[in-house]
């Protein structure tokens, strides 16, 4: 992938943080940032709200809670600017934020004793569900990267390269076997898989950057993703 300097591990070192671009580009940039955030995080946040009982604690559907959270926080750039100053991964910032939003909803409904009594049950599940949120987020990042790369290759008439990569790295077929199946040498199969690996790495890194991960932390973040899955 062009335009990046390689550091150890092959991860790009000069990627511009997309948020820096978006938040520095006025209203249109803020609109892009807001759209990205809502598209990328609505699903995991809704699942988190449902699984932890946050939404039940205020007698609402998870989708309603998340929509209300977005509406309350994303009318101006300030919420995202505060996140930028926090140094926290965006997914964690949003998860903390939705807890605060639900707390605000409870306060507004404090006349409903039944709602208040559910908070202990919510807190007890948060630790388990935080781990589950992390796994859901990792899987969504990988699904997104795989879909992007597979479709990009398909659009370029190179769908066979994706199949070669999958057969070697997921189905664990040797380069010799893959090469025979696709009419090329083992060395060509290895080169093809290397190229596709690089595309996947870039796609994952782009998502991590959009979550606020700095370039120098990307390798560590991917290692962390592996640890999250190991705990599954």
């Amino acid at each position: 992938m062009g335009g990046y300097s390689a550091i150890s591990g092959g991860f790009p070192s000069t990627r511009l943080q997309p948020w820096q671009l978006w938040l520095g580009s006025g209203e249109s940039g803020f609109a892009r940032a807001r759209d990205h955030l809502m598209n990328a995080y609505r699903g995991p946040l809704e699942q988190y709200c449902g699984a932890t009982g946050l939404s039940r604690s205020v007698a609402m559907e998870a989708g309603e809670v998340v929509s209300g959270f977005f509406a309350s926080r994303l009318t101006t750039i300030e919420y995202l600017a505060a996140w930028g100053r926090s140094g926290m991964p965006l997914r964690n910032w949003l998860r903390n934020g939705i807890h605060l939003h639900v707390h605000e909803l409870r306060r507004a409904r404090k006349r409903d004793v039944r709602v208040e009594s559910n908070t202990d049950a919510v807190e007890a599940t948060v630790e388990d569900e935080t781990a589950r949120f992390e796994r859901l987020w990792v899987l969504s990042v990988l699904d997104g990267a795989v879909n992007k790369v597979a479709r990009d290759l398909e659009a370029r008439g190179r769908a066979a390269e994706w199949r070669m990569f999958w057969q070697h790295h997921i189905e664990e077929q040797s380069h010799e076997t893959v090469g025979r199946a696709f009419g090329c040498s083992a060395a060509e199969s290895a080169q093809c898989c290397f190229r596709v690996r690089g595309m996947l790495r870039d796609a994952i890194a782009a998502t991590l950057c959009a979550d606020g991960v700095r370039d120098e932390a990307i390798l560590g973040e991917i290692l962390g993703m592996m640890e999250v899955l190991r705990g599954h």
Partner: protein
Amino acid sequence: MDTDIVGGLRPMSPEQASQLLSAVLGRHAAPIDRLLARCSASDGKSWSSGVLASANIETTSLEGCRALKDQAKADLAAPSEEGHDPAAFLRYLHAIAAASDVHGTTISSAAPTEVASGLAATAPHLAEPWCDMFLRAAQRIRGQVV
């Protein structure tokens, strides 16, 4: 879109996700993750059974276990671009498990919690008798942690 293209068109399993990350990480992937990725393939159990059966380690002396562990460790020292050799790491764990289960001795200098975790994580992917051997070894080694 070619619906025969595997991957990319439907949510992947956590096992496939681990394999994918292991591929992306290449030589940066931990040996245990590379091994678990290999075991997660459709032929994983038959592959691991082939590696373990060929070692015939259960009849080996304690010194023999040490030698097999050291050889496997040497094989792991220089990972390829695609990562550590999963067969070498499986042989490494096998030597440690056999020394613990057959001879009652821990032969690894790595942190006991780390060794026990590796054995316990690998065990479910293995056929018998190795699954039980790895689990017993993990429990024994874990029991040594104060």
